[in-house]
């Protein structure tokens, strides 16, 4: 094939610029997957327990909301980190 050196040089230059954006995007996506999995499990078990004991629906709902907010907090930590990476990559 043609001269590999040109590809390597081009990659090195482009790497400094855009891999940070690439990383930030992938990080935010993974955080979304993690949050969705966690909150999905909470929602599932909350609905199941309401089906078992409809009279406790209020308490179960409250507990579900609290747990979901805590997990979302963790996912948003990851989002904040990705934002910081993105802003650093711009400069």
């Amino acid at each position: 094939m043609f001269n590999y050196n040109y590809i390597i040089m081009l990659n090195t230059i482009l790497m400094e610029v855009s891999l940070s954006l690439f990383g930030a995007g992938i990080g935010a996506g993974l955080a979304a997957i993690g949050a969705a999995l966690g909150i999905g499990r909470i929602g599932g078990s909350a609905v199941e327990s309401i089906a078992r004991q409809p009279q406790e629906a209020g308490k179960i709902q409250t507990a579900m909301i609290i747990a979901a907010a805590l997990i979302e907090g963790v996912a948003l930590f990851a989002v904040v980190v990705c934002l910081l990476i993105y802003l650093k990559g711009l400069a």
Partner: protein
Amino acid sequence: MKNLSKIFLIAFLFISLVRGNAYASGSAESGEEKTFNPGDLIMHHILDAHEWEFAHGLAIPLPVIIYSEKGLEVFSSSHFYHSPNRTYNGYYLNHDDKIEPVDKSRKIYDISITKNVASMFISVALLLIIFISIAKSYGKRKGQAPKGLQSFFEPIIMYIRDDIGKNAIGPKYERFMPYLLTVFFFIWFNNLLGLFPGGVNLTGNIAVTFILAFFTFLVTLFSANGNYWKHIFWTPGVPLPLRIIILPIEVVGIFTKPFSLMVRLFANITAGHIIILSFLSLIFMFESFAVGFASTAFAVFMSMLELFVALLQAYVFTLLSAMYFASAVEEHHHDEAHGH
């Protein structure tokens, strides 16, 4: 093997060519070209500024207050925005809307009324008006059924007192009720005010959420009894090697709990604003009717979700603060299984 590394190299090259729109915001794209830059627009709406912009061209310039060795200088920020190079009186308004002295060696303290400060004044005035009138109406309508504002807020206040205060903290809840109620309504009102068009992203300002979390931290610290410190530094009921391991974790935990309060509120509200603004920016990027309809529908749905998140984040902040206060004032209970 040689073919695989060639493929890898080419794939790497293509991936590294993918660059986002936002990279262009560093370039000097001002003046005639005026291509739409969503990154800049979103940042402009999220961040603080020295003028309150309701629409393009309709902006209220806010007072700039600077304290330096020259003393206190107060002037309108329109001097900055109307001057061609954003300089006035030895000060320069840089790209991030921060005031810098032209002479870099000077030290200035910028205590201006910015967009966030003005919005905070308005929301504080709103809170005072609403709650002082509710308090007065309890005196006026003693023994009668509540009416008006009082009847709207009473169930909410009772919910915070019963299901957050009494439930989480127990018998000593009354000491903390003023703080919990204040923080709940402050966060809720400011979240909602930020969702108005022309509204300001106050609770999405990490300095504001830092102060709120700092207050929770201070209240926890100053209302902590000996039992709380004992549980942190010398956790009872666990074997000795574990206690040594738990000690640094618990000490760091004193600080990470308010820190998580701060980041949770900040990230939730800011992310919500960014999502709505991104959907609306899509319309300007694509400039098509179909995208316009779809984007607006999505933006309306996300706004409904943001209304719910506004309430939920206030509730979660208040509830977690109450739980931290509860652990601070918890009395020593004798438990055989506990081992102490």
